[in-house]
């Protein structure tokens, strides 16, 4: 059974339909990509899944349970963690305190004992080390570079030990070397049994680490499949490039480099 099922979700903002009858599933233990041009409704989907945005209609199921009406914090307790496209780090706290706060929230009263024996501190250090931002531990979160803040949000989400991790453009702000390391980390997380659903514009990253990709355009899922399938899907090319290779006059099959161009269109 799939871990997450988004079922026929519609979100309307006034006259604008941001998500239009979108349905997709995410299998446990995978890294799944959610891609699409800007304004396709990807972040709105994330907001619906985490409960920050109530859908106009449709359902969200986690592990078979309907969580459409559950408040944000209860979904988190059920194991959904996320990062944000527009950063939501606790700017007045240090990087270390950011992660520690997440851990405290997750642990509740148990955390009191962890504070006493120092294991909470250890956990924070491990998390920072894992995402590779230990050197920023004592800096205020609103003063670190964007890439670091994104990794901080990841560490913070991991502190709550999520089953399903939603990452919203996690690699923007990272350089190439960091992106590669980040991709390895994602695969590692999936290896631990966590499920990752990722909105991402870096097609190299998506094509390398994702096992399944869902493509969203104008609020609807227009394609889903493996990276190889998505790469050659004419519908996807039309959504991204505005034309298929037929209309462009070329008889070549679409290649990864075609899709790479989308980075220019959707930075």
């Amino acid at each position: 059974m799939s871990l997450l099922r988004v079922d026929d979700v519609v979100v309307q903002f006034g006259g604008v339909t941001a998500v239009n009858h979108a349905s997709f599933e995410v299998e446990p233990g995978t890294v799944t990509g959610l891609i699409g041009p800007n304004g396709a409704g990807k972040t709105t989907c994330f907001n619906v899944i985490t409960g920050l945005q109530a859908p106009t209609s449709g359902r969200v199921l986690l592990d078979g349970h309907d969580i459409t009406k559950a408040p944000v914090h209860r979904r988190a307790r059920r194991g959904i963690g996320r990062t944000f496209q527009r950063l939501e780090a606790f700017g007045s706290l240090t990087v270390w305190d950011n992660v520690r706060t997440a851990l405290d929230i997750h642990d509740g009263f148990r955390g009191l004992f962890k504070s006493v024996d120092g294991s909470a501190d250890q956990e924070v250090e491990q998390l920072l080390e894992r995402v590779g931002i230990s050197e920023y531990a004592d800096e205020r979160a609103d003063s670190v570079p964007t890439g670091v803040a994104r990794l901080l949000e990841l560490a913070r989400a991991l502190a709550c030990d999520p089953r399903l991790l939603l990452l919203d453009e996690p690699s923007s702000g990272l350089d190439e070397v960091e992106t590669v390391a980040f991709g390895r980390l994602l695969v590692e997380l999936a290896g631990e049994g966590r499920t990752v659903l990722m909105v991402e514009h870096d097609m190299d990253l998506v094509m390398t680490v994702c096992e399944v990709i869902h493509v969203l355009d104008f609020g609807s899922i227009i394609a889903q499949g493996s990276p190889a399938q998505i790469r050659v899907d004419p519908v996807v090319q039309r959504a991204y490039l505005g034309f298929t290779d037929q209309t462009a006059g070329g008889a070549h099959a679409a290649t990864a480099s075609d899709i790479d161009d989308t980075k220019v269109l959707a930075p």
Partner: protein
Amino acid sequence: MSEFISYTLIGIFTGAAYAIAASGLVLTYSTTRVFNIAHGAVGMFFAFVYWDFSQKQGMPAWLALIVVLLLVAPAFGVFVQRVLVRDLGNAPVGVSLVVTVGILIGLIGAATQIWPAAGRQVPQFFDGHLIKIGSDVVITWHEVITVVLSAVVAFALFVLLTRTRIGTAMRASVDNPDLLRLYGGRPQLVAALAWAVGTSLAALAGILLTPVIGLQYYDLTLLVISAYAAAMLGKLTSLPMTYVGAMALGLAQSYVVGYLQYIPFGNDITGLPAVIPTVFLVVVLVLLPQAPLRIGQVKGLVSAPVPSFGKAGIWGGSLVLLSMLLAFGLADSDLLLVGTAATYGIVMLSLVLLTGYGGHVSLAQFTFAGVGAVAYSRFDQPNLIGLLLATLVAAAVGAIVAIPVLRLTGLYLALATLGFAQLMDKLVFQTSIAYNIGNPLSAERLSILGLKFSGTGEYTVLMTVFLVLIAVAVIAVRRGRLGRMLVAARDSQAACGTLGLDLRWMRIGLFAASAGIAGLGGALYAGLRGTTVSADFMYFQSLLLLAMAVIWGVTSVTGAVLGGIFMMYLPVAQSDHPSIAGLLFVLLGVGAVIVGRDPNGLANKLFGFNAWVMDRLYPMLAERYPGMALLARGEGSALPASGSVLDVEDPAESAQEEVERDVAVAR
């Protein structure tokens, strides 16, 4: 039947006046995103101006009206927008609230200064002219004119917003001022115009209502609650719904006034009509759909450094020692003032927790203190149990206030607390539940484990001890898990929610804790004075407290203690110099407007001073006078050679210095 028609007509008149006020509020809020809590105070002030022109100076009423509405009030509105609240639209809600609270206090101060309390009458328009409908229904020309004016205002606003260029720009400004600027619009001009019109409408509403409400400082100021309640029906943006809300409110109020006598116990709650707007407001707020968690990065705030326990202990101990010295040296009457300062310090600590750390603004802290005082007096247990019970009752009341407004955020919560303060004042404090008007409640001083603190000196020392203990507790909270969570919840609600924090319970707990502290302060105060009256806990006190707290620094314990002292000194100074009593309010208001943008206040400047001396002054002197012994010291401490220490705007720098400045604790 004719009775019903009469009440309906009066209701329509009241509703029409509310509609005028509310549409002004909507206009200013929707174009600039600054909620003017002084909207009612503006109406009050210009009602006085109108009185001055028409009654004192002898201008004809129509001329006075024109001068006030088309000249003085718009000019004042433009001044407020250009100078006082400019660019506040993007600031945290707390900041714009504090600034407009400052304006409110300043206006009340100015009014009391220029027009000292006296019996004044503002006659109705065409006083004495009546229209008879049927046999015994009578309406005045004044009422007819009010309804007509309200319709004219509605029509004029409609034409302005939909048929003129500037009106279109106003509507565009609501959506996106930056985009408007890119397209060649001028948001600042639009904002100034909105405030000019809004202020003028507040003035008109004030002038129209004065013959009914009376020309008073405090009652007219609360017109903002009526206007706000009406405007909330249109979610502060829709003018038609605002008119509907205003009419519904006017009618409700009129019917309650008319039929109260038929309700059982109606005669016991004569304060009810005055709080109908508040009740209406609470109902609307509760019925509104739940506000979603705010998404969008809020820049981290730079807070005053948090002292270590050692330092806090040393300073706290010194404070207790000082109070002991004072207890020996001062007369009882002066000691009462010291005790009062300690009370205010404790109540301010409740604000440090709620506003400084938690980011919620409450305009009802003195109400919670009042609850504590009344509970302590009523329980009549002058010992720790009585004190604890009083604290718990206040905390429970705080939790109850937080529950209905749980679903709301910042602005709505703050205004709901203002409404609550008025509600408690009229329905509890001034009735037989607590104090009847002019009927003081007496309370005995505390005894702990059989040890009775009956002397004023001993009791003052005891209060100082309580102040220090609560201060240390507040610091402990800030340094610990809870404090981090409070700051985190202030910085990003969305992140806290998605990490699994139930923000509703957090908010209830925070309100309860804060109200409990305020209640404890109130209970101790009741013991100190021996008797308390309802006026001790009037809503206006809470506004003064907020302004004072922000000026001295609502993010630090030091700010609370300093603020407490000056809060105590304010009425003393006013009775010593009655000729400038109002001016002192103005000063306080101006202070809140100036300092309000940096909630760390003056206390934080003090913390910076030490580092400034070490990092800047010593090296500078050492450089200029190389031969002096200063050199060694200067070199030693000038290592980081960091930038401006007093510049609290730079977060990175302040974070670095936080450790250094830890040294400069709770003074």
